[in-house]
């Protein structure tokens, strides 16, 4: 077999941390050696078809990095070390290197992704190119069809584009789940120019990396989504607001913009049309609250990133008072698929009211952690046990925290609920941007609530009373309970504050910040009682100061 082979090495943050750069170097060295010697693998059979080593974005299976995939054979290797490079090169075109393959739950070695339980029930729409191409090469993106949808969109009327997005039913992936098509239609309906498009790449949830993986792994598809939006609503300027710690994502996106401009895709003429689009990268303000849309707009305008008080939508009055569409990274990256295949095609995946797929960062006490993408409506059980392989060390599952710091903790009795926007809300949690943290029996739920409240107390803007003072009290009371100083009357105070925060706070941070407390009170009340009555932490986490 002398087909051209590509060796895709994951060089996203997780795999780099486990040493993938050294693997790239070793693979290249071994290739050079093999080519020089005229032996080994494909290079031996056909010296003109040299395999290519590519550095790609995240393959998802971060707990088993560095990940290496050989294409087109679809052979994936895990926990690859530089010393494995020779064996991999030698095996090209022949038998895979057995010891580097994943061993499934039954102990079988599996070569392809289809047979790997971590991947087999996933569905990659948003992540279609992440891990499959070199994000620094525009040609790679083009060869996978990126910008074809933008081309198509330029032949459509704005109305046609928007109605496809509406038909797809796609809802915003940044948290609130507002229908993207409706948002675009509202902005398109205003005639006061200029209009703006903002990409929300602030991803402030601790431990989340969904959006980062897309920005770093498939920058041109993100840009394509932004450009289609701009064409649809009539915007000529777009801002990509990216979290300040994301140095690679910032660099990758800046480079992608330059490359796309040089190729005539963006800039004064979008793909040769009469549309223009300037895209700028803005470095985030560094506070969690800057991910909130009106705080982000203030931050781009150069003001302090605080949510605004006005009851007005940014589609009407956004950046510099002009109509503005603000969407999340994952929302944008889905758009080219919708334009290419039609809204109805997209709407086939997912549930009645939540269409398409959702990307999650599955972390915590779980065997197979990483970046996953599943159809909306997949149950928590499927995610945790089928994809994630369950809890390591034969421990018991206790809770899953979804939705970022102001999401909720759901217990095992809810494992069979489908994951979609409305169901999660119904049970007191939320989709958020897609963090999922699995907790086992050694996790204290009171301490967990305390942890999130502490984060939010530091990260809220501090402007309005229910959120700022409410969080201060919640933190104080929860800390007391964890220290064995809690009283039953405190639980009533907690509930009163939670209600006031939820109803009377100024922005969605405060309105959701009580979720960790509300859900742990609801589903793990017995743990609070144990702490208060018996001064005992059932999980053995809190030190109570008194002898047990």
């Amino acid at each position, binding site marked *: 077999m002398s087909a051209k082979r590509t060796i895709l090495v994951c060089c996203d943050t997780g795999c780099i941390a486990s040493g993938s750069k050294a693997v790239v170097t070793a693979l290249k060295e071994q290739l050079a050696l093999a080519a020089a010697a005229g032996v080994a693998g494909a290079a031996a059979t056909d010296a003109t078809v040299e395999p290519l080593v590519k550095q790609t974005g995240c393959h998802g299976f971060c707990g088993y990095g560095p990940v290496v995939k050989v294409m087109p054979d679809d052979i994936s290797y895990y926990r690859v070390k530089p010393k494995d490079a020779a064996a991999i090169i030698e095996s090209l075109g022949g038998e895979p290197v057995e010891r580097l393959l994943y061993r499934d739950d039954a102990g079988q070695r599996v070569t392809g992704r289809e047979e790997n339980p971590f991947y087999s029930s996933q569905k990659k729409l948003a992540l279609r190119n992440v891990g499959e191409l070199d994000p620094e090469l525009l040609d790679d993106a083009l060869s996978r069809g990126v910008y074809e949808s933008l081309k198509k969109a330029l032949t459509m009327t704005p109305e046609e584009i928007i109605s496809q997005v509406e038909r797809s039913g796609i809802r915003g992936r940044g948290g609130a789940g507002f229908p993207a098509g409706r948002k675009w239609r509202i902005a398109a309906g205003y005639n006061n120019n200029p209009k703006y498009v903002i990409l929300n790449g602030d991803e402030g949830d601790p431990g989340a990396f969904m959006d980062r993986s897309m920005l770093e792994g498939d920058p041109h598809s993100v840009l394509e989504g932004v450009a289609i939006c701009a064409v649809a609503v009539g915007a000529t300027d777009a801002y990509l607001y990216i979290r300040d710690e994301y140095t690679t994502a910032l660099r990758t996106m800046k480079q992608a913009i330059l490359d796309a401009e040089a190729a005539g895709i963006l800039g004064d003429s979008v793909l040769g049309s009469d549309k223009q689009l300037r895209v700028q990268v803005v470095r985030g303000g560094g506070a969690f*609250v800057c991910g909130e849309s009106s705080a982000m707009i203030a931050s781009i305008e150069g003001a302090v990133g605080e949510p605004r008080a006005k009851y007005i939508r940014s589609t009407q009055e956004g950046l510099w008072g002009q109509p503005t569409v603000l969407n999340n990274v994952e929302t944008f990256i889905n758009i080219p698929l919708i334009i290419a295949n039609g809204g109805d095609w997209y709407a086939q995946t997912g549930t009645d009211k939540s269409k398409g797929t959702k990307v999650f960062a599955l972390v915590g006490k779980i065997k197979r952690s990483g970046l996953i993408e599943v159809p909306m409506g997949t149950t928590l059980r499927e995610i945790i046990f089928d994809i994630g392989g369950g809890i390591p060390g034969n421990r018991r599952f206790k809770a899953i925290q979804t939705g970022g710091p102001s999401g909720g903790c759901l217990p095992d009795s809810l494992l069979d609920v489908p994951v979609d926007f409305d169901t999660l809300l119904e049970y007191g949690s939320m989709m958020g941007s897609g963090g999922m943290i699995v907790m086992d029996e050694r996790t204290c739920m009171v301490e967990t609530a305390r942890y999130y409240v502490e984060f939010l107390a*530091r990260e809220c*803007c501090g402007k309005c009373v229910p959120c700022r*003072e409410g969080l201060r009290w919640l933190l104080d009371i929860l800390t007391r309970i964890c220290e064995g100083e809690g009283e039953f009357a405190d639980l009533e105070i907690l509930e009163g504050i939670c209600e006031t925060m939820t109803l009377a706070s*100024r922005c969605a941070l405060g309105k959701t910040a009580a979720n960790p407390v509300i859900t742990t009170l609801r589903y793990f009340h017995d743990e609070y009682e144990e702490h208060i009555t018996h001064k005992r932490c059932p999980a053995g986490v809190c030190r109570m100061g008194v002898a047990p």
Partner: protein
Amino acid sequence: MTVNLMIDGLACEAAPGQHVLDVARQNGVEIPTLCHHEALAGQACCRLCVVEIEEASGSRDVVVSCTYPAKEGLKVSTNSEQVRRLRRTVLTLLAERAPLAEGALPAYCQEYGVTGYDLRFTVDKDEKCILCGLCTKACAELGNSAIETTLRGVDKQVAPPFDEPPAACIGCASCAEVCPTGAIACEDADGVRTIWEKEFELLRCEACGKPFATAEELAWLKERLLDTELNLAYCPSCRGKMSLKDLT
């Protein structure tokens, strides 16, 4: 053009976009506020002015009346059991934060039966500031921005830059005037004003002899009012009398 809305069952007319709080007050419906100031609208941070609303479409929500726009067919309920409960929690939180606050806050606490501060949650027993932000906004609107809110989250505070006597302060005391809780110390004694740890000499009115403004404040006014005939040697009240005399 006007819009029609109901506030506590009372039919009211409003200009579109006029805030519900203003419409309510025009119609004699009282809603408690702390961070609202007519000249510095839009703070919307104390959240004491919460009301329940029902839109013409039937959707219901809890909003703050000081920034919520009046709309056709809106129904507002300013004093429901839920609204009162939310206000009581807000007042409790504030009372605990600023136990020495003066003025409207303790009065509202009394009105809403918020007693028995649970002093476990008080960080500073001498605190008066509720962080309404009116002082910094007033100062910024005057173009001085001598004081600012710093830090975020539960650590937010009002302070001059670097916690030093603020260089840009002209001693006009606008901040102290708009403060609803008496949190900003400003003292005029023996012809000297002390504010933000700075001392300003007070100039006397050439007509009545009363100290009325700091030299820095007058210099600031002069700079901004280049073309006016205002005689800055006189205090506002004497100035008023004089122009009347001039007219007659």
